[in-house]
Structures are given as structure tokens and as C-alpha cells.
């Protein structure tokens, strides 16, 4: 091998070490976030029949919205359907763990909540579940962020984050937005 070709190879190997280092750092940061900070994507493979979603069980109309369970866990259940969320407004407490559970009876939807890391696809056939904690009070936008038909742009809901002292469940543990 001529000298200049050896030089090229040596330079390339040095650069390969830099590349390996960069890849290692990226991978390390993601691993740290996943393991130490529990930054994992929503991935509970939990099936539900979209055709009978609203007829019985968890996603019937009377059971939607926010409820404090017997163990104190706050759960908010929402149906995403062409072209609205049911309910249109949900109340959640600030600085307390909240579980959002969503499902769709028709087509693919998705949600994000502006200013937070809440984000999930809502795929018919599955329950989408997100664990989160809202840190500031106020009204946040929760739009449908996946194309679901011509009315998609009008599909959005409000997440009303209230201070813990204003979060008052009724005797059934439910909290709903006040009618305007």
C-alpha cells in the first residue's frame, strides 16, 4: 500500500472513532432519559373493540372525563371521534400524577397538549395511555393532531389545569368543567 493511501486510511480510522463517539453520546443520552428519567413513549398494547366502544365498559358516556379512583389515582378518559372529543373539556389537578386514557370508535386520531410532553396516537382497536403531571394552572389546547377527515381542523378540546385546592371531586370522585 503506498504511503499516501496509508495516510488516508489512518485519517479515516481517526474520523471513524469520532463517529463512534458521537453515536455513543447520542445513544447514551437517550438511554439515560429512558431509564433514569422514565421518558418512554406510550406503549401499552391494550386492545378494545372500536365497534362497541361506547356501548359498555370504560368508554361509555357516563364514565368519560376525570375521575379520582379509590386509590387516589387521577384518571381522565376521553373518546376521540370524527370530529370531536368527548368531553370537549376536562379538568385535571396541577402537580399530581394524571393518567390520560383515550380511544377511538372510528378512524385514527392523535393528541398533543400544547406546552407539555403529552402526545399520543389514538388508533382504533387500542387504548392509548399517557402518564403525566401538569405543572402550571390554566387552559391548554388539546387538538387532534392526525388527519381524520375533512372536519379534522375543527377537532380540539380544552385541558383545564387547576390548582390542587380547586380540584374538588364529587362523592363519585368525578370532576367536570363548569358550564360556561
Amino acid at each position, binding site marked *: 500500500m503506498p504511503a499516501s493511501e496509508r495516510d488516508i486510511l489512518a485519517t479515516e480510522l481517526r474520523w471513524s472513532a469520532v463517529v463512534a463517539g458521537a453515536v455513543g453520546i447520542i445513544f447514551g443520552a437517550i438511554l439515560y432519559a429512558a431509564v433514569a428519567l422514565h421518558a418512554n413513549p406510550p406503549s*401499552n398494547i391494550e386492545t378494545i373493540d372500536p365497534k362497541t366502544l361506547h356501548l359498555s365498559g370504560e368508554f361509555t358516556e357516563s364514565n368519560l372525563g376525570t375521575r379520582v379512583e379509590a386509590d387516589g389515582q387521577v384518571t381522565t378518559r376521553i373518546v376521540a371521534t370524527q370530529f370531536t372529543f368527548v368531553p370537549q373539556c376536562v379538568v385535571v389537578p396541577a402537580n399530581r400524577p394524571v393518567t390520560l386514557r383515550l380511544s377511538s370508535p372510528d378512524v385514527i386520531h392523535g393528541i398533543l397538549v400544547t406546552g407539555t410532553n403529552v402526545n399520543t*396516537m389514538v388508533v382504533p*382497536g387500542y387504548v392509548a*395511555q399517557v402518564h403525566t403531571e401538569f405543572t402550571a394552572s390554566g387552559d391548554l389546547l388539546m387538538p387532534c393532531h392526525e388527519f381524520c377527515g375533512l372536519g*379534522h381542523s375543527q377537532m380540539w378540546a380544552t385541558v383545564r389545569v387547576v390548582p390542587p385546592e380547586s380540584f374538588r371531586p364529587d362523592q363519585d370522585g368525578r370532576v367536570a368543567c363548569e358550564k360556561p
Partner: protein
Amino acid sequence: MKSPDRLTLAHLWVAFAAFAVACFFGVWQMWARSPLAAPFFTPEHYFISVTAHGVSMAFVLTTFFIMGFGYFTAESALERPLPGKSWAWLAFLLGILGTVMAVVTILSGRATVLYTFYPPLTASPFFYIGLVLVVVASWIWCVLMLVAMARWKHANPGRPVPLAMFATVANAVMWLWTTVGVASELLLIVIPAAFGWRETVDVGLTRTLFSWTLHAIVYFWLFPAYIAFYTMVPKAAGGRLYSDLMGRLSFVLFLLYSLPVGMHHLFMDPEHSTGFKFLQMMLTVLVTVPTLLTVFTIAASLEIAGRLRGGRGLFGWLRTLPYDRPMVLATALAFVMLFFGGGGGLVNMSYGLNALVHNTSWVTAHFHLIFGGTVVIMYFAIAYAIWPRLTGRQPESLGLQRLQLWLWFIGMMVMTLPWHWLGLQGQWRRVAQFDYANPIIAAWGPWVVLSLAGGLLLLASALLFVWNLASYHRGATQAAAPFRFALAVHMPERVPAMLNGFGVWNMLVLVLMLAAYGWPLAQFAVLSPPQAIVHHVGQGG
């Protein structure tokens, strides 16, 4: 004009015509989303426009460009006539027929499902069949590329396949793997549903099959840009390619790592476990390797050219590069856009962090920068480089070509940097209009208007590009010299068999795909999740 020239020109003109029309759609969409009132606005028109923009840019521009450039490369790099020319023309006609079917169904409002489909939303079957015909055309192209390389190898035993052709065939092989996912989705599930032969679909399965295709397709589009980086740019800059072997290695790594990573598009989906999402995230990190190797090799090649032109010192060679040549200018601008677009991409693929940006304008900004920016600006540069050979005429003005490239770069930056910012604020994708009466959304208004201004610059650049190419077709022709690709510093006499063919790499792709997609696809047979009812769009409405 020789017949392969006509073949290439026909493909590239179809590609660029679709591109120019799609730019009009794109600008109008940004206008609709802005606080300014757009003419002709209805939600239906908006989503028809999004579908047309996506199909034109992602399927028609790319497929026809790649096929046309592949035919050109096979002839110029192998210095042999293209085998199966009548098959190539048949593929062209199939592609045209498919495109017409897709366009008619889209514009009549019977295919408003965007270019990524979203079953159980279901369009007219002729929309999907049109797209399948375009894919079948590209399969014929893949076979022709494989045959051309095989015949050359047979005639030149033991010789390394010229790098430009090696890369083109790597892309063809990758594309055959890539299209398995979407072809299965369309042929087995979506088209039967569109005809009304099935009433429900397994949505998780269709999303997973589409994800199989969804990332590698981006690398299919990207390959011509990288082929230009390795085999055209060093020569255009007046130097040589730093390392031929590194080019081969990068291209086989693209083949390997583009495929088993598509699930990073499904991070936010409920039908897959964290385990497989994590596995495909790790493989996605490795896709950065061939890009980082390429950045190094191309920078080193340009350094050779810059120093030959008198550049001194650590970075002095950057100043002496011939930026007046469109290929060199486009490469410099492409690398700037690759820096921003690639950085955004690292956020997208970061597993947990993806929740911050999924389905926001951040993602739209990312792929417009990488594809619309880095890749398409190199399509421009390639066209400028080969048009003199194809038409036998020299350009009237390099100044107009440089102006066009600058306009594209500035327009792309002005459009996408605000989108990144808006995405971080939570502005979501794929909506026809925003309610600017909402205080959160009202604050986005000025940024949206700024990005619209960027879009107008892009439209101006697109029209100037078509003008520049059309101006080659006027005036007297001269006999054009054969096109020559760049030489490496050390042209290899022999290369390892692994880097002169794809047998081993195909086996590795198979192993990786089984590991990455085996269970994620098999789980739907085991789990048998409840199916969703098919929703036909554009009927009775």
C-alpha cells in the same frame, strides 16, 4: 438526440413538471394556514391540495427523477448501452398511466387521504392502483439496473463496478426491500377494502406495514444527492474523491440501516411495546454513521480541490473553492441544510423526546429541510450538470442558475426555521386553518406569515429552475462530450467482493428485518386485535 437521452429527459421533465405544480399547492396551503384569508379556501380544497402536494413531491418527482438519473448513470458510468430499453419505455408509460389515475382521483375529491393513506380512511381504489403502477414501473427500473450491472461485471471480471453505478444499484436493491411493506398494505388490505370486498381493517397492522416503507423511502429519495456528492462534486470542484472505498461502505450501510428503523415513525403508537421501539431507535442511531462518513469524505475531497486552487491553512481551502459552479454552490448550501435538518432529525428519533415534537410543525420542518432542502437542491445541481450532455447545448447563464439555488436555500431556511419554532410551541400538523382568535394560536400568526414569505421565495425559485432548464432547449446544438464522473485519489484496481455486490448485504438486511419487524408484525396474528370499520371518503358528500 440518442434514445437514452430521450429516455432520461422524458423522465426528468415529468419529475420537474410535477414538482413545479406541487410548489403552487404548497404555497397556497401555507397561505390557508396563515392569518391571511386565502382564495378558494374550503377544508376539502385544502386536503385535496395536501394530498396532491404530497403525492407529486414524494412519489412522482422522486420516482421519475431517480429512474431517469439511473438510466443516465448506467450508460455514462458503465460506458455501455442500456439493456432492455423497450422495457424502460414500458415502465415510463406505466408510471404515466399510474400518475394520471392518481391525479384524476385526487382532484375529483375521491382520494383525500393524503399521501400516507391513514386506513380505515379509504379512497377510490383507482388512486391506490395508480400508485401501485408507479411502484411497478420503479420495479422494472430496479431490474434493469441489476441487469446492467451484472452484464458489465460479466464483461469486466474482477473489476470494481464504477462507484456511481454501484450506488445506483444499492438504491435499487434497497427500494425492492422498501416497497414490500407498502405493497403488502395496499394489495392485501387497502385495495380490497376500497373495492368493498372487506368491511374492516386491522389498523395497527396497516400502520406497521406502512412504517416498513416509510423511512427507507426517504433514503431512496436521498441516494441521488449522495451519488452526486461522491461522484460529481469532487470533479466539479476541480479535485478528486478522497476515498472510493468509503463511498462503497456508506452506500451499503444505507442499504443496511435504512430498513429496520421505520418504527421510529410509530413511537407514539399504542400497538407496539417499548422494547421494539427501543430496538429500532438503536438501529436508527446507526443511520447517522453513513451520513457522518459522507460529510467527512466529501469535506476531505473538497479540501483537496481547495488546496489545489491555492487555499492554505486550516480552513483557507474553503475560501478558494469555485462557488461560481452550480454543483459546488449547491453542495455547500445542501450541507448547511443537512446540518439543521439532521439536528432536528436527532430529536425526532430520540425515543422519549419524540413526544415533544410528534405531529407538530417541527417534523414538517425537518423533512422539508432534508428532502426539500438537501436532496432537492442536489436534484437541481444534477440536472444542471447533465442537461448540457442531454441536450447538446451549453447554458445561457450560470448566473441565473446560481440565483435559483440561492433563492431555494434562502426560501427553505425562511420557511422551515419558523416551523421548527412553531412546532416546539405545539403547532400541530395537517390542519386546514387555525383559530387565530385563540390567544395561544394568535401568538403564532407572525411566524406563520414569515414562513409563507419563505414559501413564495421557493415558488419563485422553482419557476426559475424550470425556466433555466427550458432555456437549454433553444438554439443550435453542438456534439456534447461524454459525461465523466469524478475520479478517486486512488482508483481501486480491485475491491473486496463484499463491496462490489450485494449478496452478503441482502442476507444481513434479512436478518435485521426479521429481528426488527418479525414479532411486531407477527403479534397481530397472535393478538388478533379488534378491527376498525372502513370509512370510504369522497362518496355521497
